[in-house]
């Protein structure tokens, strides 16, 4: 479902070039749970951004669900992000002025979903992450774990094919981290493809497959 073929990502920095990704070839099947690990600056976030259509490969091919997406227009890539990809970030990135419910509604807002349907689906998804009782609370009234669960609800409310999590537990205590991981693993068990970037070995161990990166390259034969 996710297929990268000899992908390079090269940043121009001043006069020089930084090779954030080199020769990355990778296949992730539908429903897999993959952990992407490696030291800081190893290129794992860059890889995640390319997989999430936020960034484009400098060279190489990227096929999502059999479709070449690296060369699509920004407009079409927005639609892929909207419908096929869910993001979870280390710092949650909830909009502080909106309630938990409204935050979950946000992707549907831009999709033009009618208000009643939007509210309904957001409420259901909040229920699925166990936060129905927090629906009207704003992010600053929620704990870290709760915020991340709201963010997860927002990521999956459009029913994407793949959930990309960038250090989802990096800002949480151990108990909350456990809850959050259990939640996304439950979703994975129901068929959602899961890619988690982490440098926490405990989190990485939970994945069925671990992809190690160093200096922009995949390490070992895990690909």
């Amino acid at each position, binding site marked *: 479902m996710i297929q990268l073929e000899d992908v390079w990502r090269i940043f121009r920095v001043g006069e020089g070039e930084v090779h954030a990704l080199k020769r990355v070839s990778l296949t992730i099947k539908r429903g897999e749970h993959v952990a992407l690990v490696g030291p800081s600056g190893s290129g794992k976030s860059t890889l995640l*951004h390319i997989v*999430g259509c*936020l*960034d484009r490969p400098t060279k190489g091919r990227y096929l999502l669900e059999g479709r070449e997406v690296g060369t699509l227009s*920004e*407009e079409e890539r*927005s*639609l*892929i*992000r*909207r*419908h096929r990809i869910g*993001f979870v*970030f280390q*710092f949650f*990135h909830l*909009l*502080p*002025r*909106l309630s938990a419910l409204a935050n979950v509604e*946000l*992707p549907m*807002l*831009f*999709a*033009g979903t*009618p*208000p009643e349907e939007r509210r309904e689906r957001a409420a259901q998804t909040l229920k699925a992450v166990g936060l129905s009782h927090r629906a009207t609370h704003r992010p600053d009234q929620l704990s870290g774990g709760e915020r991340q669960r709201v963010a997860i609800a*927002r990521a999956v409310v*459009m029913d994407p094919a793949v959930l990309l999590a960038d250090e989802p537990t990096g800002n949480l205590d151990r108990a909350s981290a456990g809850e959050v991981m259990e939640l996304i693993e439950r979703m994975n068990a129901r068929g959602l493809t899961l890619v988690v970037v982490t440098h926490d070995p405990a989190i990485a161990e939970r994945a069925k497959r671990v992809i190690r990166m160093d200096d922009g390259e995949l390490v070992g034969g895990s690909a």
Partner: protein
Amino acid sequence: MRFWDLLAFAAGALRGHRLRTALSVTGVAVGISAVVALTALGEGARRYVVDQFAALGSNLLVVLPGKVETTGGPPFGGVTHDLTLDDYRAIARLQRVRRSAPLAVATDTVHFKDRGRAVPVLGTTADFAAVRRLAIGSGKFLPPGDPDQGGSEIVLGVTVAQELFRNENPLGQIVRVGPWRFRVVGVLAPRGRSLTFNMDDLVLIPVRTAMRVFNRSSLFRILVDVRMRDEMSLTRRDVEKLMAERHRVEDVTVITQDALLSAFSSILNALTLALVGIASVSLAVAGVGIMNVMLVSVTERRAEIGLLKALGAQDRQVLAAFLAEAVLLATGGGVAGLALGAGAIRAFVGIYPNFPASPPLWAVAAALALSFAVGVGFGVWPARRATRLDPVAALAKR
């Protein structure tokens, strides 16, 4: 994205920064209220002048001696023929003229007992009241009859009557103008200033008597009331032709009110435009204020913009969201400015009740359209910056 969702999203973002929002709304409000108030004043001035002309009698032609009127010079040029009472009679007999009134003018002191008041003394006939739409407060106007019969009646303006007679009834009393004695037959109703003369502060006597009192052979003006409004220029030509025949040379000037009116009108329109131009400067300043606020907002909300893109918001949706914010700020200011301007006009009218200041409808519509345009115009650039933001970089920072 639905339109109302877009507006609600933008409004929500603005509510997040109440003070900043209020200040930029105020900026636009000041600009718009200035535009509205100043157009109202300009328009009021124009209407004031038009009203004054209407009060003068809207079908009025004015005949004056001399081909070109030179203001500020001696009123009677030596090279031209006098305007005589015979001229007046000839004009009054013209087909298209409803009525006409001769006018001889000088300033003299009117005495009653030991009190005196220097006022314009107008010599004319009974028709003057109708030509100039004058109403009588008490008594009668000058008696009709042959203008060459100089009587000794006098009609007082209301201020003159009050000043000279205080609490006494002036009717039937004798007043003096120089050595001449006049019997008061009437007092005008209050009228106020009407462009040329303050109708409250003058006296009227029969024209023949006036010419004798002033020792003049020429009239100051002949006023002509035309029957039909659309025969003004025809009548004007009639009068010019008649006078050319009578004097064997074209030596009179005939002014229509329309000519004066359109001259005044174009001057006042220019004035209004100038005022609006000045007010627009403050609107432009307010627009730059909005741009500034939106730029700050875009910089502050990098993470939000990155997130919206990650959630699948298209560039044009991000653009629309930020543009909607700018437009909301501006039109909010526009509406507030209209209210503010209306308040200012009301206050002004409270102080000067006679001044017909009210914003013309087009100005209200234009003000709203203008505020919308300011929002779009000054919001586009910040909004475009928002769409150009790289989501990866925007999300990387907390």
